[in-house]
């Protein structure tokens, strides 16, 4: 830290009233932000990241109580009047939000929403303001800024919307830009583009940034310094490499280790987990906020607690946990990680990769499956001639951008929607398309896990009712005592106790809900479990424990998984085979290692390149896709990816369907390119 801090937060506290008494959202929080510096803020949801940013902007709900100081250029923002704050908001400190679509006013044109910022703060006239807006849009390499300015928010795509929001924040050349999860609502490919833009901003516009995210991969990419928040407090902050490579606080370390990342595969290691979940903090709670979940907890934790500078610029609230590891070397850590001997991982079983040598037996085969949704005159081709196989005791990961048809595939297989074309073969025979025509056996043997456990468990039922209903309905267990016994047995398998039987979903945490959902699915001993973004809605620490549980359950039951996810790292971690989809069609299919290493389908290559990398050392020359997938109602003659492909050959791509190109016995892609054209940088 060579420069004088631009923003200095001192002992900031924010409290909200609630039915159960006052809760603390931000507590005794202090940090400095220097000029031209980017501070990344990470933490799980409910840790107060967003509250921090709104507290800086002095935009909290009426009941909130604030304490401490937010010094901006030496002046305390908390003491400023609404009128004085107006001069700062959008002018000196600007914000970019998680969901660009809802942050833009649906009734005003983009141009008007941009212009008003310059007109309010820079006193520009109508034409000058528009000129400024167009210039800024142009600087963010947006083609046709005039066209964008004329349009309404709903007429432009999410990626452009977020660029507009960034442009809006840049109009007055602010001193600080706060970005609150600006890419969370976007597809991975768009996210990569936005992140590239953000990474270049601070140099170009000479400003500081606070970048809030739950994803350490993203934070690593854009930040100079990183602050880790837990339950309203900063538990550690310091230079980005230090935080990533040598975390001192047990929470930081646990958080980083529970993320699946390159090189971590289920055969090698189980994921690290943090027991429990983030709880709200009441006003009268004292002591280390993490103590309850900390593996390094010791009797002294209650008193010996507080942010201390362990080395220049690196602060942590707990210096004792890993003191014995100092001095530390990067090589030692890398070696430890490569062998899977990360110390905290205990009790998790290390699995062997499924061997394909003795001829895998297919459990599920899709043959030319098509699913069309017709509304009015248009037809959305959600699935358009999909073929693939899923083997017994095997995990097939399905990846692709939103709208690629991966969820539809899951629903068609599970029976929620009947395919319009093609056949689904399951366990040797064809099964009926929709649940209405499936028999009890088929319903029992194919189970579905949904993305949002809060929505998949009926909030009006107790866990007992939720678990016993399938026993009665699918397995015909008549005896209530027997049902209860089996429900309890299943609960134990998902690491929940009998006491959960009487609880309702509302009283469960996200991870507990998903465990109950898993218990419900496994009660009927399924042969196939379709996991539709089963861990996407969960915090990383919870995601890790659920992924571990999924692996354990599979090992125990021998069931096969169809694991649908937008997160390549997660798919890479859990899958044996991977299927890459684009616009309702298959791009690439093969064993995991074959798919994630060259030769790739150009789309796979782009996806892999866009994935945020947890490890900052692994930055390479990126491939960036333009725009988003095309209108799914338009019939496609050639390759669906042709329009965005960086390796497009020529008209053949647009006009002729790509051939199936077998790269090995277990690996094929659909592309016009010759195999040698499919090379790329090694990724994983």
């Amino acid at each position, binding site marked *: 830290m060579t420069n004088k801090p631009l923003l200095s937060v001192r002992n900031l506290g924010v409290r909200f009233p609630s039915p159960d008494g006052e809760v603390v959202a931000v507590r005794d929080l202090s940090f400095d932000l220097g000029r031209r510096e980017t501070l990344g803020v990470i933490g799980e949801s409910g840790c107060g990241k967003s509250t921090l940013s709104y507290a800086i902007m002095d935009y909290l709900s009426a009941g909130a109580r604030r304490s401490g100081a937010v010094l901006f250029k030496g002046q305390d923002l908390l003491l400023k009047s609404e009128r004085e704050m107006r001069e700062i908001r959008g002018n000196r400190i600007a914000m970019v939000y998680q969901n660009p679509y809802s942050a833009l006013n649906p009734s005003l044109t983009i141009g008007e929403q941009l212009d008003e910022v310059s007109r309010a703060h820079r006193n520009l006239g109508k034409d000058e303001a528009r000129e400024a807006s167009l210039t800024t849009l142009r600087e963010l390499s947006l083609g046709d800024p005039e066209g964008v300015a004329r349009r309404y928010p709903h007429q432009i795509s999410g990626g452009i919307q977020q660029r507009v929001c960034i442009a809006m924040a840049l109009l007055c050349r602010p001193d600080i830009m706060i970005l609150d999860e600006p890419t969370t609502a976007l597809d991975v490919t768009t996210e990569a583009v936005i992140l590239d833009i953000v990474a270049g901003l601070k140099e170009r516009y000479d400003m500081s940034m606070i970048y809030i995210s739950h994803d350490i991969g993203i934070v690593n990419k854009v930040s100079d310094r990183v602050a880790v928040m837990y339950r309203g407090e900063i538990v550690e902050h310091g230079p980005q490499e230090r935080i990533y490579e040598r975390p001192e606080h047990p929470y930081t370390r646990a958080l980083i280790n529970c993320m699946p990342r390159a090189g971590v595969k289920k055969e090698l290691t189980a994921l690290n987990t943090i027991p429990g979940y983030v709880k709200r903090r009441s006003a009268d709670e004292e002591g280390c906020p993490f103590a309850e979940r900390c593996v390094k907890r010791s009797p002294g934790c209650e008193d010996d607690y507080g942010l201390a500078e362990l080395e220049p610029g690196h602060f942590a609230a707990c210096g004792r946990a890993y003191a014995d590891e100092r001095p530390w070397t990067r090589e030692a850590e890398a070696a430890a990680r490569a062998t899977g001997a990360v110390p905290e991982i205990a009790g998790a079983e290390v699995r062997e990769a499924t061997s394909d040598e003795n001829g895998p037996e297919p459990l599920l085969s899709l043959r030319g499956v098509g699913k069309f949704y017709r509304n009015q005159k248009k037809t959305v081709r959600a699935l358009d001639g999909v073929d693939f196989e899923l083997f017994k005791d095997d995990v097939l990961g399905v990846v692709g951008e939103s709208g690629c048809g991966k969820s539809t595939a899951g629903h068609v297989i599970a029976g929620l929607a009947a395919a319009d074309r093609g056949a689904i073969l399951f366990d040797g025979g064809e099964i009926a398309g929709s649940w209405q025509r499936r028999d009890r056996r088929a319903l029992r043997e194919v189970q579905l896990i949904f993305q949002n456990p809060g929505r998949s468990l009926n909030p009006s039922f107790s866990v007992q009712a939720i678990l016993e209903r*399938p026993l009665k309905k699918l397995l015909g267990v008549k005896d209530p005592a027997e049902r209860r016994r089996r429900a309890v047995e299943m609960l134990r398998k998902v690491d929940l106790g009998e006491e959960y039987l009487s609880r309702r979903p509302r009283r469960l945490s996200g991870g507990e809900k998903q465990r109950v959902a898993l218990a419900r699915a496994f009660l009927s001993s399924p042969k196939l479990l379709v996991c539709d973004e089963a861990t996407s809605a969960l915090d990383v620490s919870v995601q890790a424990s659920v992924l571990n549980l999924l692996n354990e359950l599979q090992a125990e039951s021998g069931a096969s998984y169809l694991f649908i996810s937008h997160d390549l790292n997660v798919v890479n971690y859990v899958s044996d085979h991977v299927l890459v989809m684009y616009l309702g069609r298959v791009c690439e299919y093969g064993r995991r290692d074959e798919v994630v290493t060259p030769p790739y389908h150009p789309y796979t290559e782009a996806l892999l390149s866009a994935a945020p990398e947890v490890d900052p050392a692994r930055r390479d020359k990126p491939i960036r896709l333009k725009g988003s997938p095309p209108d799914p109602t338009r019939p496609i003659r050639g390759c669906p990816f042709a329009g965005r492909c960086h390796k497009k050959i020529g008209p053949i791509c647009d006009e002729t369907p790509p051939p199936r190109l077998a790269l090995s016995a277990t690996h094929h892609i659909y592309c016009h390119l010759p195999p040698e054209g499919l090379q790329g940088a090694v990724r994983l």
Partner: protein
Amino acid sequence: MNKLGYALRRNPAAAVGLVALAAWVVLALVGPSVLRFSHTAMDMESQLSAPGLNGHALGTDALGRDILSRIVYGSRSILSVALLTSLFSSVAGVALGFSAGYFGGKIDAAFMRFLDILMAIPPLVLSMVVLGALGDSSVGALTLIVSIAYTPATARVARSALLSCKSLEYVDAARLRGESHAYIMFVEILPNAIGPILVEVTARFAYSIMMIASLGFLGVGLQPPTPDWGMMVIENKTVIREAPWAVLYPSLAIASLVIAVSLISDFLAKALIHDE
């Protein structure tokens, strides 16, 4: 339950409404048996006597009937008809709205179009025409017709309550268990859609009171001597100058009851819908 208590403490208006409604219910149940005068007895010595005179707390009307007794007795019919109406229209509305929303597609489209048509006839007009044509406004006929007039609106509410739950995955989970449509609609969805439906029931309760009173005013509502509040207002409108109390107190009775129910409905809407 805790949440309700907390919300009630933060919303004293709703508590007032609850107390007022409870007071009306108690009055309706026990009032007639403790009051000094019967609701039909004619005190020929004190026609149009002012409140407080001759033991008539709220005065008498032109026939010497005790206004207080008539209001208290009238609360019975208005409360019971309004309650039955809101229940019937809600049950019918839920059955119709749920079926339409659940099965969707063409059934739903046709159903919605039909509702549009029915909704186009204002409920008051519909009830007035039918009751006027029947020429007989018994409690049963009134309840039935007002229920029918209100069913389209409740069906819409029920339908949208169902639609907000229908896309949730626990419904898909139930389907994948092979549950019947009725089970999914009424066991899986109904408990979760009950918030807006309850709000609708209470709002309908308030509307029913107004509707019954208005029909009474138009002369097609409950028939005398049932002391229907709306009818009391119109009956005594003639003597508004001589005996303003005979008009004012029934009007206030209507207002207080509707406002009480509306406050409760508002509160339920806040507690059951917006906070979720």
